[in-house]
């Protein structure tokens, strides 16, 4: 039996790539490969799903491939580089360090290390897998010989499966009853996701379109300095009653926000895939997004893509979508149709085909 073992920096339950590692393992095992996960760190409740990466000794006696998942600098990459087994790299994108330079200088080194390791792995990798064509482009620039796009293995059927938290729904619908629309963005509070640009557009929207509108920003902060600046910015704009920087929320609370949202607004400058777009599609929330990085590829024609983050343009786009019921309905329908293209079973088949073509069975 051939083994394809995964090597990951961190296995954690709260991010999309964590679920991806487990889905890859399941798909590989189902295809007849032996497949374990080796991690630098595994968080509860996944602690028992991964082995310490240094415990891998490659003495199984079977043909063995190492699949390294790249998303940040990690000692696991150095470990993989030092092994003799052939390597597959699965690239989930590394946020360019420049986004963090002035906010979290200590992160810059880790991100830059990740990019250096990704470049070094090009020489060793027999195959580069990428979540998106955008990520695949980056691998080709690093001269990976063989590159294939395999969407992130994300079970879209699980979106919205958890019932919306009634208390949150109640709070949000009570506010909505007083008038005004609800903007939503879900994602880490991070400079590359540019929540400050959403706030700027929202300020324009409140002033010129809907003075009672509300904005909800969900997600934990990956930069405390950026979060602090964002909070000060909101206060200086006198929008603290209208902008809700909710931080990390439970799945049930998140679903409540989606259920009551009128528009999902994205101003990110860098996204390797952007899973929340799929969540918004599932919930039928119309999407208005700045066309940058992998966002156009994930969104397709299921949302209004804007070439500019000019606050008037973003605000005008949201006003247009919300003011034209036909457009709103059409976008929601297009979103649901688009979501079908990220079918887990199809993505698993693509993964197994690509790996099988290289590794054999």
């Amino acid at each position, binding site marked *: 039996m051939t083994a394809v073992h995964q090597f990951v920096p961190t296995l954690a339950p709260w991010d999309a790539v964590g679920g991806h590692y487990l889905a890859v393992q399941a798909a590989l095992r189902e295809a007849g490969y032996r497949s374990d996960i080796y991690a630098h760190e595994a968080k509860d409740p996944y602690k028992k799903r991964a082995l310490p990466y240094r415990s891998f000794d490659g003495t199984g006696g079977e043909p063995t491939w190492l699949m390294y998942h790249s998303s940040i600098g990690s000692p696991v990459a150095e470990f993989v580089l030092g092994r003799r087994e052939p390597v597959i790299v699965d690239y989930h994108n590394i946020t*360019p360090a420049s986004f963090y*330079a*002035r*906010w979290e*200088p200590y992160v810059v080194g880790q991100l830059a290390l990740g990019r250096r390791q990704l470049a070094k792995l090009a020489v060793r990798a027999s195959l580069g897998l990428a979540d998106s064509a955008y990520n695949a*482009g*980056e691998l*080709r*620039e690093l001269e990976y010989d063989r590159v294939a796009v395999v969407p992130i293995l994300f079970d879209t059927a699980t979106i919205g499966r958890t019932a919306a938290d009634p208390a949150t729904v109640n709070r949000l619908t009570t506010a909505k009853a007083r008038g005004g629309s609800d903007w939503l963005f879900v994602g880490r509070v991070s400079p590359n996701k540019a929540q*400050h640009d959403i706030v*700027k557009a929202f*300020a*324009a929207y409140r002033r*010129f379109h809907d003075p009672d509108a509300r904005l909800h920003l969900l997600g934990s902060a990956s930069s405390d*300095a950026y979060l*602090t*600046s964002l909070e*000060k*910015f909101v206060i*200086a*704009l006198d929008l603290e009653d209208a902008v809700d920087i909710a931080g990390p929320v439970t799945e049930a609370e998140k679903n409540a926000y989606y259920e009551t949202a009128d528009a999902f607004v994205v101003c990110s*400058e860098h996204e390797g895939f952007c899973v929340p777009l799929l969540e918004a599609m599932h919930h039928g929330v119309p999407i208005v997004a700045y*066309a*940058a*990085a992998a966002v156009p590829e994930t969104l397709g*024609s299921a949302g*209004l*893509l*804007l*070439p*500019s983050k*000019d*606050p*008037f*343009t973003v605000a*005008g*786009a949201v006003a*247009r979508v919300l003011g034209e019921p*036909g*457009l709103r309905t*059409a*976008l929601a*329908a*297009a979103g649901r149709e688009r979501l079908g293209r990220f079918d887990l079973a199809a993505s698993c088949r693509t993964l197994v085909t690509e790996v099988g073509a290289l590794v054999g069975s």
Partner: protein
Amino acid sequence: MPEPVLDLQRVRREIEAEVRARRAAGEYPPGFSRDLDELFARFSPPEASDDFDAAVERAEEAISMELVIPTASNKPGVGLFKRVLAKLLGWYHVFVVQQVSALGAAITHALRLLGNRVDELERTSGHTERARSEGARIPADRDDATWEGVVTRALTGCTGRVAVCESGDGVLLAALGQAGVDAYGVEPRFVVADAAIAAGLEVRVDDVVGHLRAVAPGDLAAVVLRGCVERLPVGEVLDLVDLATVRLAPGGLLVVASVSPEAWGRGRTSVEADLAPGRPLHASTWAALLTAREFDGIETQAFATGDHLQPLPSTHPDAGVLNDNITRISEALFGSSSYVVVGRRPISTPTSTS
């Protein structure tokens, strides 16, 4: 009954047209976006790459390492264990911290010395930043009426966004809009930009290089470079052409519209010429730059000044010889006033993310 096709391109164009109209009507204040930018900038840390002293100060602050080892824990007994361990290993912790701090202090001191030397070099050789800001105040020659037709013809039929850098008062931008080209302007001087915005044109108040860096690679159908190419230092012009190339979609057009170096020299006062950090390039230099970057179909069109020395009447006995010389002198004195160079980015070049 089949569902109507969702024409999002049309919706986007209508949204942008409405924004332009509301700007033109004065409904959207020109300074609104800028005020938001400035307000957020007030709460943002200084850009490390912009402020050397602030960056070194941050490094110096980071040198002071925490000597107190954190020992708190939610788990019973673990806190006590950590405290015992901290007590036992405290001497080693202090030893390591002192060495790391000494290394950090030595590096930042060396950086300070290096910074002082660079300051000295800038003082003696001319400070680029100062020269650039002085140069930015100099009104660049804008021969838009001459270029308008050529640039518009070159860009007609472009499908995708066209960035006009710098857009100035917006004459060229307006002409492109009338020709159905999806063009927007980038103009660093807000007074000039505001006038164009007030006329209903889409103009971003931004530095050209800063704007192009923010645009995703391969996102633009065409880039028009004007104004800034007449005054940037050569190194920055080379950076600019590389940046613009990467931002162009494969098959995208790069258009350079500039006054000629000769006309630039004639049109300056000595003060303006001396303080300008850069000069316009010759059209042939632009053609060479684009050729080196594998652009296809490079075309150059020069525009004459209209000035020339009067030839002698043909009745003059030496008219033939003298008029040939007069023509040469006239060419040397007046030459072409401006030019447009157009090149197409090769389709096969892979998109970079720099």
